[in-house]
């Protein structure tokens, strides 16, 4: 009798120990954070891309963790500053994949950095959501590479369609020396004819240039120019805009989504009046009609960002928000952080509402936005307004 009881006790004790052990390891596994790897141009020439992107990622990783995390696990952000340098980006991505062992990558502020790490990402088979602009990132489609911002080609098309509606057909281009500038200029030249636009002048300026009156004078002296488009970002477009008014060019000026932020208006001052550009609805969040399906998402993001960081919201931060949310959404759908499952889940996301627009990903479209995601904005009274 006693021996059976002892044996039973022993078995129960063993079971209890085993159960506790199982619970502990299970709990230990559950406590392991989901690692989101990121490489952004927080310093350097593309700092106004990377800075809001990093702030956004930090803010929302915190918020998501405060709300209980994803799949019962906390998120951990591992971010490096690649300063716009493709070499650094490559080294940091190697570090993220091999050393930090992240589960998913959200980053790559510039196209150069993104393209540099594509071979690494494909070889390591890890899902990567890029925050850069050029169409070459997702065309041709690469299995593990996605992106959230609109492509530069879409920006060109939106501008050209608006020009068509205003009966402007002969256009001058002025662009900078950066990757974004050159890529968008090339796309614009490609799609111009399709929209009935003829490019009759094509000037360029250098990255650190402080004066573009020479190039603009050439444009002014070209006969028949009906509108000017400036694919560019950074300080270049602000100076172009100021010089534009200074030498008295009167035809409409269009900028690119590269300067879609309040900063541009501050820098260009009164010269920015009546400048038009294609941008995400985020910039005019409060002006969107209540019936607009995007309104709640963009207003919420704007409020959060501005109250936390005391500075104007920017569309680039919005792209980071979309990237993080898509990654989280995919992980929830897949029910795990297994890289292949998350990748497949990403391709299956339909009708997701982000700050950039409605996202419909698929096996053939790794960006998911269409032209409705772009709104045409105009500067009126020192502010962005929606062009109806």
């Amino acid at each position, binding site marked *: 009798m006693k021996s059976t009881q002892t044996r039973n006790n022993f078995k129960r004790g063993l079971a209890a120990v085993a159960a506790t052990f199982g619970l502990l390891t299970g709990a230990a596994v559950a406590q392991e954070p989901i690692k989101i790897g990121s490489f952004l141009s927080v310093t350097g020439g593309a700092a106004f891309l990377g800075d809001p992107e990093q702030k956004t990622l930090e803010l929302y990783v915190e918020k998501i963790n405060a709300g209980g995390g994803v799949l019962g696990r906390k998120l951990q952000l591992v971010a490096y500053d690649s300063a716009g340098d493709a070499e650094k980006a490559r080294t940091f991505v190697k570090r993220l994949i091999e050393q930090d062992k992240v589960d998913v990558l959200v980053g790559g502020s510039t196209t150069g950095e993104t393209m540099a790490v594509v071979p690494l990402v494909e070889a390591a088979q890890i899902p990567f959501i890029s925050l850069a602009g050029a169409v070459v990132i997702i065309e041709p489609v690469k299995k593990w590479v996605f992106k959230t911002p609109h492509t530069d080609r879409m920006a060109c098309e939106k501008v050209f369609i608006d020009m068509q509606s205003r009966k402007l057909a002969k256009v001058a281009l002025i662009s900078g020396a950066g990757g974004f500038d050159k890529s968008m200029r090339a796309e614009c030249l490609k799609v111009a004819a399709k929209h009935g636009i003829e490019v009759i002048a094509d000037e360029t300026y250098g990255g650190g240039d*402080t*004066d573009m009156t*020479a190039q603009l004078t*050439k444009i002014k002296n070209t006969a028949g120019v009906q509108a000017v488009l400036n694919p560019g970002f950074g300080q270049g477009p602000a100076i172009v805009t100021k010089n534009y008014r200074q030498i008295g060019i009167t035809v409409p000026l269009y900028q690119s989504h590269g300067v879609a932020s309040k900063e541009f208006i501050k*820098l260009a001052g009164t010269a920015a009046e009546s400048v038009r550009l294609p941008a995400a609805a985020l910039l005019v969040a409060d002006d969107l009609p209540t019936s607009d399906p995007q309104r709640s998402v963009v207003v919420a993001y704007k409020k959060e960002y501005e109250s936390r960081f005391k500075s104007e919201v920017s569309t680039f931060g919005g792209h980071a928000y979309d990237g993080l949310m898509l990654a989280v959404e995919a992980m929830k759908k897949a029910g795990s952080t297994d890289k292949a499952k998350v990748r497949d889940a990403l391709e299956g996301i339909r009708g997701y509402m982000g700050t950039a627009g409605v996202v419909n990903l698929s096996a053939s479209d790794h960006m998911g936005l269409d032209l409705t995601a772009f709104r045409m904005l105009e500067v009126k009274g020192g502010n962005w307004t929606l062009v109806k």
Partner: protein
Amino acid sequence: MQYLLTGLTVGAIYALVALGFSIIFNASHVINFAQGEFVMIGGMATVSLVAAGLPYLLAVPLAVAAAALVGLALEKFAVEPARGASVVTLIIITIGASIFLRGLAMLIWDKNLHALRPFTGDAPIAVAGATILPQSLWVLGVTLAIVLVLSWFFGRTLLGKAMLATSHNRLAAQLVGINVRMVLFVSFGLSAALGAIAGILIAPITTTSYDVGVMLGLKGFAAAILGGLGSGVGAVIGGLALGIAESMSAGYLSSAYKDAIAFVIILAVLFFMPSGLFGQRGGERV
């Protein structure tokens, strides 16, 4: 005509930066690669002070003084301890200083671009078929004033003449009782002030940010070399020439290659005049 006016404006800024290079070089035979950062400090400090509510008349001198202080600190803490080192080592120290200052600026301010309101408004003035901003007139005017003041300083005042003497022959200057260390100290402060003034003048036209110093420092250095290192006149002429050359190439040749053309011109000048336009013909002691 437009190209000429633009070139003059940009050239005046290069000239101020180049003067800064020349002054420090004269006192110590060191090229101060942190010169560009003084330009940046001038612009950014003024932005902050104006944003804090100070009027321009107060903000500008304060910003210049701040930059001068940084220049003095740089001399005291980075250059003086390494006095006996080779020229290359000193260059690396100033490069390290410029990186340090840029990192510091990133933290004190931010990474965004900032605009400064022009001194007397935005309306362009028409001159002979071209337009010029009122701010450009300020740039040219102040540069001219500074050049005049400096030539008075170096020609008439005791301290200025002492600095000139040091640049010609350091040992001899020490022998006649000139405090060479003080000369070095002052030259850093003076160069920093010049750089800061350049930064403040140009900021309303071009916006400013924490890394605006890199390119301007490089172009200022190029201008100083073009004019001949150590020659104040050379620095000014070199700066103006560089600015005009850039502007003309952008207008008449290729706007994409304008920077390259400027450097090609510099290389060509150096090939034919190895000491720059006004530099001292070097003789080598055996």
